[in-house]
């Protein structure tokens, strides 16, 4: 019957007061939504930073790659450090190339296939790293409003029970309970809206990066294929 205190006209309507007046279910919902919001924003910030870094790295690598530097030199410098994006694909392909030629590969066709496989694997691993946790944004964007609504319905139910108990239907009795209940929906929307927007933007950004890396891997595959043919011709 603590909810009868809702009849207190408009005294405690600050957000903190509303939160404290809510029942534990609604509190739980609000806290969960707040955590989801925090995590959503953490992901957004992280991804934005990661994508911008990736973009920079791609640009720098392309610059270096097309500067006319020999592939062996480039491999030697990149293999020492931790690489991302195109660098990782390049390192994976060159590693496979080196291993095969050091041991003296017999079949150039099989070598080509192995290099392609290694580049695909590296690309997939890079894409996983790029698109990881974007699913959480999608889930938050679609589910948070419903979770907030659930909190609202619970809050309104309890406030109506309080009204029935107090046998008074004046607006000052009804309003605080409804305001408290609507706070849950507000928090849900607060978490969901940035999540949806960020998910759309980040997934499209990730797509662009993926396309860029696939294009590089195809191109590099073509270059390596030409190199293999030249080596085979020299040997022959």
């Amino acid at each position: 019957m603590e909810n009868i205190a809702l009849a207190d006209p408009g005294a405690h309507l600050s957000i903190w007061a509303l939160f404290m007046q809510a029942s534990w279910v609604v509190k739980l919902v609000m806290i969960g939504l707040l955590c989801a919001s925090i995590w959503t924003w953490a992901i957004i910030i992280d991804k934005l930073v990661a994508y911008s870094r990736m973009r920079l790295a791609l640009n720098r690598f392309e610059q270096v790659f097309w500067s006319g530097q020999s592939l062996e030199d480039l491999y030697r410098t990149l293999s020492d450090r931790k690489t991302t994006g195109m660098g990782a694909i390049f390192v994976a392909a060159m590693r496979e190339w080196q291993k095969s030629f050091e041991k003296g590969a017999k079949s150039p066709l099989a070598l080509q296939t192995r290099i392609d496989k290694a580049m695909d694997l590296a690309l997939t691993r890079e894409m996983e790293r790029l698109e990881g946790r974007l699913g959480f944004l999608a889930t938050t964007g679609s589910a948070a409003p419903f979770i907030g609504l659930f909190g609202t319905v619970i809050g309104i139910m309890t406030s109506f029970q309080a009204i029935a108990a107090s046998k008074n239907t004046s607006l000052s009795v009804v309003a605080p309970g409804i305001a408290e209940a609507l706070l849950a929906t507000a928090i849900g929307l607060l978490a969901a809206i940035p999540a949806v927007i960020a998910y759309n933007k980040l997934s499209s950004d990730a797509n662009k990066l993926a396309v860029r890396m696939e294009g590089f891997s195809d191109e590099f595959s073509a270059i390596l294929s030409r190199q293999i043919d030249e080596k085979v011709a020299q040997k022959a």
Partner: protein
Amino acid sequence: MRTGLTTSVILHAVVLAFGLFTLSSPPAMPAANVESVAVDIVPMEAIAQSLQGDKKAVMHEKPAPLPTKRPDVVPNAQKVGENSVDTDKPVTDEAKPKPVEKTSAPPPAPTPTEKPAAEDVPKPQEKPKPTPATEVAPTPTPKEEVKPEPVKQTDPKPAPAKEPTPTPPKETTAAIQKEEVKPDAVAQAIAKEQPTEEAKLPDSAPAPEARPKPQPQPAQAESAKAPDRKDAEKPVKEASSKPKSDEKQFNADEISALLDKQKPSGGGAKRSTQQASLGGDKDQGQKLSKSEQGALEAQLGGCWTLPVGLEGSENFVVVVRFNLDTNGKLDGRPAVEKSSGNRQFDESAVRAVQKCDVAGLQVPAGKQDIWNDIRVTFDPREMLGL
């Protein structure tokens, strides 16, 4: 990831802190302390209602009472009020001096003289009178017989003229005088007894204006006053002719009682002792509401059978007017007020009213006044849905 998480947490903390301080307790909405306006739904009839009264009169809090409150005073009263007399006078501000003097002057004069005379003398004398009359009758001509009878019969109750009359017949029987002598004797006796009062009487006689009856009074006064000038036969004839019609009703003793002592002012509320209130010529208060009219028409429509074989009967419309008494029964035959042009059709509508009356018309109680006169339009398209 750690950087993202920390920035996110910091961002949320900042936003929440900002929200807690700025969004705390929004200012109360200023609600104007205006009292709510009560809205009533009033039927149009309540505004259009007006009670019977006088158009020129001042409006009073309480209107003149309705006739139904005292139906026992005058059963066939036509005007509203509680007066004993049904006057039709217009409103005047104050009573005129004339009628007041006239009405006030005579009563004191006759009462002292007449009443004792009438009480004491006439009753015992009435019975002996016919005998002297019969005694007298054989001797003089039949005209004489006629004459003394009315004189005696009319006279005994009214005092001044009649006291002398019984005495002269005795004289006449004794002396066998002629008829002409009697009026003289009467006149002389009157002159002897009350010359002054009788002089007043004729003045008072013409005073009552509203009455058609007062004519006999001046005639008698004349007969008593001026027998010398006129022939004796004329007053006799007049006297003889009048008693035949008014023998029992007319009583000269009660002239004063019959006089209209009501002041001419205060009219309007016809028979009311109260001043009239502002109002119209008729009571327009109660009317049949649309729903009541519709209910009545629905009942009549149920009783209505269109004449068989009448081509295009749905195009005819007839207005029938009929009266209902207070019990809701038909009073008289319904009249066709506005004929449809087809006699059969008109008759069918009249029959519908009569048939419904036999079955019993359901009329709302409390509106008996308006059942007096009802007009119903018989339109097959509306009543029967053709």
